[in-house]
């Protein structure tokens, strides 16, 4: 199978997983889907590392799979287990409506990607298109989900999208920067995990819309 096919398959798989995340209501499945999405990103990075002989991308791939594919999903599931919350996502917008919005966002993302000089055709068109769509879907998820955990997942989806462009289309970031981003992500998740604990302790719920009651 040519490299470009693997890249497109992985990118399309990421888009499908993002889409399923929008349609899912079970919290655990959403987390697993995010894990799959990150694993696909790792495979994509590894494929580029092989085809363009950029060995430093192997580190990126390994870090992505280990950190975002396994560690963060495990950590999030543990947090949910510990605080014992209701395991369903309660979005502000119902599922069919969210799906419709995301459909529009994907079309917009794909359309915009043709405006980039690299994005007019070929593999990079699809990579940029998928990344932009995922970015928009991530932002949409962040706005419409009530639970703090799902907002973390949305943030991580956005992060994956940015990473997809960085790895797939540009000639790559220095390794130091990539490692720095990875540690940023893990720190962000840890801090948000603690934050979720605090929110649940105070309000006995993860619903962030209740934070507005804190106003004096």
């Amino acid at each position, binding site marked *: 199978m040519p490299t470009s096919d693997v890249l497109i*398959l992985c990118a399309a798989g990421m888009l499908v997983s993002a889409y399923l995340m929008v349609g899912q209501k079970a919290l655990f499945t959403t987390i697993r889907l995010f894990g799959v999405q990150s694993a696909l990103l790792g495979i994509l990075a590894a494929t580029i590392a092989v085809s363009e002989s950029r060995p430093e991308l192997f580190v990126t791939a390994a870090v992505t799979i280990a950190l975002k594919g396994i560690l963060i999903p495990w950590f999030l599931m543990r947090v949910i287990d510990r605080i014992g919350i209701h395991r369903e996502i309660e979005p502000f917008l119902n599922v069919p409506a969210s799906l419709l919005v995301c459909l529009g966002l994907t079309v917009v993302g794909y359309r915009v990607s043709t405006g980039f000089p690299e994005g007019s055709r070929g593999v990079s068109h699809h990579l940029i298109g998928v990344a932009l769509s995922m970015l928009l879907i991530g932002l949409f998820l962040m706005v419409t989900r009530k639970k703090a955990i799902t907002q973390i997942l949305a943030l991580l989806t956005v992060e994956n999208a940015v990473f997809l462009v960085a790895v797939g289309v540009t000639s790559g970031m220095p390794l130091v920067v990539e490692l720095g981003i990875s540690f940023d992500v893990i720190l962000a998740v840890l801090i948000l995990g603690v934050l979720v604990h605090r929110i649940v302790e105070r309000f006995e719920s993860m619903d962030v819309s209740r934070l507005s009651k804190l106003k004096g």
Partner: protein
Amino acid sequence: MDLALPVIGAVLQSAAMLAIAPLLKVTIKKMKARLQNRQGPPWRQGYSDLAKLLGKEPVRSETASWIYVAGPRVYFAAALAATTLVPVVFAAAPLEAAGGILLLVGTLALGRFALATAALDTGSPFGGMGASRDMTIAALAEPALMLGLFTSALAAGSLNLGVLVRGVVQHGPSFHPSDLLAFAGLFIIVIAETGRIPVDNPATHLELTMIHEAMVLEYAGPDLALVEWASAVKELLYLTLLVDLFMPAGIARSAAPAAVLVGIAAWIGKVFVLAVAVTLTETTNAKLRLFRVPELVSISLGLAFLALAIRFL
């Protein structure tokens, strides 16, 4: 001669599909049982069940009209007719001159309509409930199925399944992102249409949430055998359709014995892989609440629509 070859091919292919379909059902049952640390039914169970049902005398309600009798027969005939429109071992469907995707979807819809009408005929609450539920899901699943099929048709430039598959074999898979989106969408449709677990539970007659089983609850004996057999054929047909559209590698392009053998082996192998995927989905998911099912099907509708939209971008 010109007409004889397709007809012979159609008869052979539909007979083969009829013969293999119960085996597929048992295979999935057996794999599911294995995953739950059970033994599962013996391999011949599918055939034994059909033989048992066919040997019984038909029991029909006194209030039933001819619609009730015709339902299973039309359903069975529609499933059988649909098998002649799909390429299985060869990169050509026996009766592909008759029509393509639209005829296939239409034929399957005709079967569903006949069964739903027949379920309403006796006036039993279960039949009516099952029929209304089946139609609710079908109303969403059918457009998704059409959109998913159109995505592949758009790439090949033809609505005819034979031409479509030959195009994919010739140019190789396109590896456009829309393929994966359409596949994901169609896989959900296959789960929904064949009454597998997140949508319907094929293993029970007791739940109030059942769909297909509620619809055919009134049937017994040979009538029930026809319905069950046709459902099995439909399941095999859907899996074959997925195989044709998205992984046509190995399909026979000539009647040479070697090519045919490879074609048969490839088809069995690929359908088995999909059966494993269906089994895993059934085992790892819980049955959805009925009101959630339209949400699941609308996901597949969205995916299929997206696949089609991305083709143009």
